[in-house]
């Protein structure tokens, strides 16, 4: 039986079905999870997808963080379950303190949707073992609040511990400090990314096929762990 990847739907989640399709393309089983349920339905890994949870009116991810399902997600992350937050999901992970720092309004003040070149900085996370260290990959960014910010000490620690997962290259779309596009926690099971790997799985409808490796990585990771 293929490994089960849960995809959480908050009110206002948008890329939830897109992530489920990407999980299936990678050979996994996608399981929908509902924000209001305190039940992870036996999944092996979790994705918090992109979108505008609760409209993102207050601060991106600020309200979603308090959804009942997040109590379970935080606990599972603590037990080492792979968790990936994409875009709004990354914002939720920061708001939940599963990842350090915060994502602020883009420096250019506009929402930005573009195909973005990235450099793979760490392949030591549950979600990136299938990528080549140092590789240039392309995935879309599409957000208005993706400027990664943390204090200098935190940034230095992230760099020092190899926890910057991907970095923007050939132009920084949002003014993120140190061109950071994605980070991981100390254990390497929780990853937050502003770019959208689920929109980089099939060149017909995405920016490239480079993102499929992230979903393949986690399927390998959970099979290996089982």
């Amino acid at each position, binding site marked *: 039986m293929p490994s089960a990847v849960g995809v959480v739907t908050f009110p206002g989640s948008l890329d939830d079905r897109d992530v489920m399709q990407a999980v299936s393309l990678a050979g996994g089983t996608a399981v929908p999870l509902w924000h209001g349920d305190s039940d992870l339905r036996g999944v092996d890994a979790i994705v918090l997808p992109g979108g505008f949870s*609760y*409209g993102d*009116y207050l601060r991106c991810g600020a309200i979603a963080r*308090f*959804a009942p399902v997040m109590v379970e997600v935080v606990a599972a992350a603590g037990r080492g379950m792979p968790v990936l937050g994409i875009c709004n999901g990354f914002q939720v992970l920061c708001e939940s303190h599963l990842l350090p720092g915060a994502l602020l309004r883009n420096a250019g003040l506009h929402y930005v949707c573009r195909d973005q070149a990235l450099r793979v900085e760490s392949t030591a996370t549950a979600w990136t073992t299938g990528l080549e260290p140092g590789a240039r990959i392309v995935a879309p960014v599409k957000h208005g609040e993706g400027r990664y910010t943390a204090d200098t000490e935190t940034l230095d620690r992230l760099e020092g511990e190899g926890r910057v997962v991907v970095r923007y290259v050939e132009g920084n779309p949002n003014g993120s400090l140190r061109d950071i596009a994605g980070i991981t926690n100390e254990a390497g099971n929780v990853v937050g990314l502003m770019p959208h790997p689920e929109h980089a799985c099939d060149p017909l409808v995405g920016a490239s096929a480079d993102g499929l490796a992230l979903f393949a990585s986690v399927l390998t990771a959970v099979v290996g762990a089982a």
Partner: protein
Amino acid sequence: MVVDVMLKPEILDPQGQAILGALPSLGVSGIAAVRQGKHFEIDVDGEMDEDALGRIRDLAGTLLANPVIEDFALRVEG
């Protein structure tokens, strides 16, 4: 100098509504209404005199707020 900009009372405030809607799941009770607006802190060169006040009032009514949907309030602070 502080300028607070709020949607006019008869206009829908989706942001305030979203916050109000989230309170029960946070276990917060006893709050009847929340409205969200913008808050600007403006430092003026030189004296904060009548003239400067007039300029900030103009700015508030043109750039900071759209009087069609928003009200603003000025306050001297600090």
